């Protein structure tokens, strides 16, 4: 699979180490995607990495990714300027279960940059708000300065039909909000445990404890979905880099229903 050339048309610095890139295809059709899917982004001459799509699925003309610079490729991408060319393969992988969640309460739990892969699902849910029951967005960040998509969180909170709670691990200076961990927000409930579908994205340890908190609230494993991250190369289930027991995260994931992986997620050798 050859990467398609895309041009960077907009760069938005979100945080000191994180940017959102808006891409458009140099030729050919825009890239339609389902919320939760990812692409392989190629920084020419440096390398290729999987990045979740963070844009609005209703507007596939613009392909949006939010990237944190942590390695050679991601740092090259976060340094991109408008006009730069990147290669794109995809979209790949499974999606958030939004059809399954229709008619249910929706609990979206994100930690750190994990809000980015959930943002397309949030767009889709809010655009079709009447199809869902209670909608709760629970977001944990390191500090108030590390809150991703701050303006959008404020806009979502400003709606009268959506519950948005933000909590930070640590604080210095003025911050009038909550301090603690995102699992504290789950413990507060506010959703129907029998009719809630939970979608979680963040560091894997955070997701494990978020699942525990959801279980304590009575949400069953088959109503919990999470997005896993593994080292990926081919993204089409051939190379085996992202194998997780009998699954390839690139092909069978990244979004998994928890009851289908709960026996293997805590096996640290896998």
């Amino acid at each position, binding site marked *: 699979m050859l990467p398609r050339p895309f041009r960077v048309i907009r760069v938005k610095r979100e945080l000191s*180490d994180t940017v959102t890139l808006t891409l458009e295809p140099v030729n050919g059709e825009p890239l339609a995607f389902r919320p939760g899917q990812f692409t392989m982004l190629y920084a020419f001459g440096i390398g290729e990495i999987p990045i979740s799509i963070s844009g609005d699925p209703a507007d596939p003309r613009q392909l949006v990714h939010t990237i944190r610079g*942590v390695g050679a490729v991601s740092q090259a991408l976060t340094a991109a300027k408008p006009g730069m060319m990147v290669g794109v393969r995809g979209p790949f992988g499974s999606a958030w279960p939004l059809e399954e969640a229709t008619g249910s309460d929706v609990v979206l739990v994100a*930690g*750190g*940059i994990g809000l980015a892969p959930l943002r397309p699902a949030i767009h889709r849910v809010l655009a079709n708000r009447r199809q869902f029951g209670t909608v709760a967005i629970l977001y*944990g*960040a*390191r500090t108030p300065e*590390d809150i991703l998509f701050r303006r959008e969180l404020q806009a979502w909170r400003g709606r009268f039909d959506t519950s948005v709670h933000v909590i930070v*691990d*640590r*604080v*210095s200076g003025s*911050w*009038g*909000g*909550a*301090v*603690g*961990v995102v*699992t*504290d927000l789950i*413990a*507060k409930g506010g959703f129907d445990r029998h009719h809630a579908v939970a979608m979680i994205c*963040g*560091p894997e*340890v*955070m997701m494990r*404890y978020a699942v525990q908190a959801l279980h304590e609230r009575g949400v069953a494993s088959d109503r919990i979905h999470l997005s896993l991250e593994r080292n990926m190369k081919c993204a089409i289930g051939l190379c085996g880099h992202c194998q997780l027991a009998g699954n390839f995260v690139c092909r069978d994931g990244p979004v998994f229903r928890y009851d289908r992986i709960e026996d293997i997620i805590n096996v640290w050798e896998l």
Partner: protein
Amino acid sequence: MKVKDLRDLLGEHAFFQGFDRPALELMAGCAANEHFEAGALDAREGDAADKFYIIRHGQVSIEIPVPARGRLIVQTLHEGDVFDWSWIVPPYRWAFDARADTLVRMVSLDARCLRQKMDSNHELGYHLFERFVHVMASRIKAARLQLLDLYGPAS
């Protein structure tokens, strides 16, 4: 219009779910309604922990004053939470400072009064300890997750 009495207020709070009416009445004998304006200091590290509170409204910060760094907030507590556990662990002194971030309405329970009732009514004592162990376990778990700095720079 019926004014809620303290037994009703305790019974409505998540922490006291499962206590029967006699137990709630027994504990209500140690209870009082209190409110604090934003900025009021409710507890200071090392002082006698002569009460514990159940929060009905508002936000309370648990703080540690650190020289040259000011007051570091380690956790905030909200409606439905309990503040704190120091009253039940000898030597019964506050382990941290606490400050009302907003107008806070709470029901306080007199620690000495409640400890005496727990001494003479072991079933009550058992059920209160059971609930406080849960509170303490939740806070230890949260503190350990915060220590991990999960969202920090990749190492």
